[in-house]
């Protein structure tokens, strides 16, 4: 922020939104990391914690929404201030969704608990979640600095997650074909993998929002995509 508002209370309101978003980001990140850890280690207690943490994230999103509305009504923000507030609303919504995805993953811990997860699949999931959480962590750092360049760079990185997800998808399919008894747990794992991949998408959304907040322009061009799991036959014929 280049300069302060003439009304200092306005600055306080904007700072409050920024602080709450950062807090939400931290919690969402923690929830997702815990959910994957719970899944890999079959830790139901940790999964339970993730599920209950989601309530905090939901209420934070609602609170940010209410504060933003009040600020808009009171201050009639313009230009960068307006983009800041609208951006906060969007980012809060993305983070709330990230929390939901973490929670959904945690719920599946209980379902796959009995059969356990094959080691190699667990490693694949861990790697996917490392990528997605790295993406999320980076984008939250960029939120603090508001660097349009860095936001753009993060947006370009989503491709890697998509590629990893496609390969995991293929692995799970093979596993199911080998032994139909694996189908239940593998389907759950597939959902978990999709959840994690979606976290990457939300991080990319946030990067785009930050870019808009900083520049007033939408980032140019299509975001890179390498998720080919929606063309199932294409993947299978690659074999």
């Amino acid at each position, binding site marked *: 922020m*280049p*300069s302060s*508002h003439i009304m200092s209370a306005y600055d306080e309101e904007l700072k409050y939104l920024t602080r709450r978003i950062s807090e939400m980001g931290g919690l969402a990140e923690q929830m997702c990391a815990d959910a994957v850890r719970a899944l890999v280690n079959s830790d139901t207690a940790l999964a339970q914690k993730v599920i209950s943490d989601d309530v905090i994230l939901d209420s934070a999103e609602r609170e940010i929404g209410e504060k933003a509305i009040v600020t808009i009504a009171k201050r*009639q*923000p*313009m230009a960068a201030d307006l*983009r800041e507030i609208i951006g906060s609303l969007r980012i809060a919504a993305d983070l709330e969704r990230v929390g939901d995805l973490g929670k959904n993953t945690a719920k599946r811990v209980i379902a796959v608990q009995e059969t356990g997860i094959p080691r190699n699949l667990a490693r694949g999931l861990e790697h996917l979640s490392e990528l997605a959480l790295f993406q999320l962590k980076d984008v939250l750092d960029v939120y603090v600095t508001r660097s349009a360049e860095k936001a753009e760079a993060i947006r370009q990185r989503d491709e890697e997650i998509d590629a990893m997800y496609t390969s995991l998808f293929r692995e799970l399919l093979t596993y199911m074909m080998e032994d139909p008894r694996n189908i239940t747990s593998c389907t759950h794992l597939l959902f978990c993998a999709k959840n994690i991949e979606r976290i990457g998408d939300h991080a990319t959304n946030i990067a785009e929002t930050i870019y808009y907040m900083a520049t007033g322009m939408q980032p140019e061009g299509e975001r890179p995509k390498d998720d080919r799991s929606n063309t199932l036959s294409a993947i299978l014929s690659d074999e």
Partner: protein
Amino acid sequence: MNVLTEAATEKALVKKMNEINYKMVGQDVSVYYGDKRALFDVNLGVRDNTVTALIGPSGCGKSTFLRCLNRMNDTIQSAKVTGRITLDGQDIHDPSIDVVELRARVGMVFQKPNPFPKSIYENVAYGPRIHGLARSKPDMDQIVESSLQKAGLWNEVKDRLNEAGTGLSGGQQQRLCIARAVAVSPEVILMDEPCSALDPIATARVEELIHELRANYSIVIVTHSMQQAARVSQRTAMFHLGHLVEEDDTDKMFTNPNDQRTQDYIMGRFG
């Protein structure tokens, strides 16, 4: 090669300028009040059927520029205007231009409603009468009615046209002044903070009126309310310390202006 591209860009620019219909154009307009220079080489066009808002902090020259457009600065002894201002391509400082005629074509509404101490009817009829726009009483009645209609005041005053204009409420008085400006069939209407003395409802009425008048007139409005500029105008020009900082589409100006000074001003920050 470079020269060629430059020439091509310039050509494209000129072509673009020609495609826009400018009602009035100010070129290198400077204004001095005695030794003090109030306006520095302002280049700004007023587009046809468009509301142009002039914004900027107090003393930035926006009202000064507005007053140049119908030569209101002529009335100030010490004021000197340089540069060229055209209305439909014709220089408004040309000796052949009759300034009374000019002010009929470029009408003005002021900050404080200033109806004449006469009846509502006479307030509106005064201009058309001195300009000889009505040939008969029914003609004049017609002008008065349609002007009051256009100003959105007819229904409120049609049964008391002979009552004093000064007896109306502030918002009604301002709309009466707008009716008075409209009565002489101007082409451009200048408004100098027309709503600053009005309550929010009267303000909304005047803004609605500006929106309607735009279909037939070019409007230039000076306002201190950012929200008002954003609501009523299509183009916005930002002034600062006598300089034109930037002029752009209103939508762009209030979401993503180019100049830091505009940013700071519209967001209420320390510049």
